[in-house]
């Protein structure tokens, strides 16, 4: 008797499980058809890093402050500022092979220059190819505009900065020309 109830119970439960499984035959597949269908990504998604330019004027946003270089836990960023002109970037190396996409550098950047893009397809044949230089990192104006909108970042305000900027360059511009050798003394004055 015990065996009988056990058998009936067991059969019932096996068929209940099988029925649950068979219910799934007719439904659509749940796996994403990745290469054909690009997955939906979110503004916060952290993938390949890139440098933005000002979406309106096209000038590079990096001011070579090296904040990103200092906070990076994996020391994968190298910022080389322009020695001629303070506050402009000469070269920028980012080793994506070391990067763990933590996003800390994007948070400390004062100008929203370095950002995480939604591009995750970045396989290369050699490790050296993963070291991006400034040309590969910098986005075009269109792309920058897209990311500034997508991530709802405050747009860089060029006008209040720019108006004093030409004044400074105008006053400073004549100086280096006559006294290019006396650069050290110039900075102090």
């Amino acid at each position, binding site marked *: 008797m015990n065996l009988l109830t056990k058998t009936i119970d067991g059969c019932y439960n096996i068929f209940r*499980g099988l029925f649950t499984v068979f219910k799934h035959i007719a439904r659509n597949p749940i796996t994403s058809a990745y290469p054909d269908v690009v997955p939906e990504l979110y503004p916060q998604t952290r993938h390949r890093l890139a440098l933005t330019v000002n979406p309106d004027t096209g000038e590079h946003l990096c001011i070579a402050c090296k904040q990103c270089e200092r906070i990076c836990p994996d020391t994968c960023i190298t910022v080389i500022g322009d020695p001629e002109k303070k506050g402009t970037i000469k070269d920028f190396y980012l080793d994506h092979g070391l990067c763990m996409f933590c996003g800390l550098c994007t948070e400390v950047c004062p100008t929203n220059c370095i950002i995480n893009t939604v591009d995750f397809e970045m396989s290369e044949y050699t490790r050296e190819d993963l070291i991006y230089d400034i040309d590969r990192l910098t986005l075009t104006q269109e792309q920058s505009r897209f990311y500034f909108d997508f991530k709802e970042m405050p747009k860089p305000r060029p006008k209040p900065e720019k108006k004093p900027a030409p004044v400074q360059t105008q006053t400073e511009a004549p100086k280096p020309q006559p006294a290019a050798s006396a650069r050290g003394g110039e900075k102090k004055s």
Partner: protein
Amino acid sequence: MSIVKDIGHTEKAFKTDEMIINMGPQHPSTHGVLRLILTLNGEIVKNCEPVIGYLHRGMEWLGQNRTYVQYQALVDRVDYLAGMSDSHAYIMAVEKIAGIQVPLRAEYIRVICTELNRIISHLLWLGIFMLDLGAMFGFPFYTFRDRETILSFLEEVSGQRMMFNYIRIGGVFKDLPKGWTKKVKKWLTTEFVNYIDEYEAIATKNPIFLVRTQGIGYLDPKLALNRGVTGPSLRASGINIDLRKYKPYSVYDKLNFNIPTSTVGDTNARYQCRIQELRETAKLVVEAIDKLPGGDTEDLEKNRAELTSGENPTYKAEDLMFIAKGKNVPMGFKCGPGEAYAAVESPRGQLGVHLIADGTSVPYRIKWRSPSYNNTSILPDLIKGHPVSDVVAIFSSLDVILPDVDR
């Protein structure tokens, strides 16, 4: 006559040598890289010696060479299936030393995300457990389907699927996205509950599953306590210790939830405990979303004036922030000198961080108390005397994850 007697006792009749077999480290069902040196007598395991350390990454040492802020990006890797719990423990320890008051809203967001992470971890465990028991045909796909949904929820919040780096010193990285709370609540209350029923319909009463799990790997509560086993494995043995109730941290004391326990202590009981915990956790997330100070993110600005003004405001203005004032720029954080231990209930048990700060921006010493390490120590006692086929079932039922063991 004597021959017949001896056949009854096969061990005596056919004198067998003990055989030593290495299981792992590259074994698909060792949940990482664990090596078990099994001493077998025929089919029966006579002795078992776990060898750990293959996944050691020096998480403690890495922390002592990085600033507090830099290290917070790494702690998700301690137990990569429950990254939120890891961050929560570490950040709680830092906050204890620095004396930072976390806004109430941030605490609720932390609880919501950590509990969603618990569901992810249990779902992965469930799929893998079934796979280890031999349910090769499709069962993991059911749990991975739902895990995928929650992973995309958490990706929307934090930016990545597993290495969240979301819980920050003083709060969380960003407020919840607009419309997120409603979406999560709807999914948990309408769909996820049915999905758990589906798992149970397939597995819980299946006679093959019962034979594989009932009475297998009995964990003695006394032994479990002595070895420091925590989490659902301990609660399945009848000892109801859950840090969320036992020593409430964060805002768990303001939430109502049950801790599923069982007194049986075998593999099946551990399975039951975790399945019940899935249901409880789903309810807990819904409750936390309901109680979230300030409500949904899209209504927050609307509610803010109403909730914080008036004679008896429901909340203070700083309660509704997602990160404490002046803490969202992570440069130059310093704390200490001081010493703190913070523990959270991770999906696997009690996860603790002991932190010593010396006043610089770099931690002086970090020690992780990981639940999986203690839970692995019980393994030889559980599988002694069981056939080889049960080794994987018992090991799997403890929900040990190797990066957490080796750190």
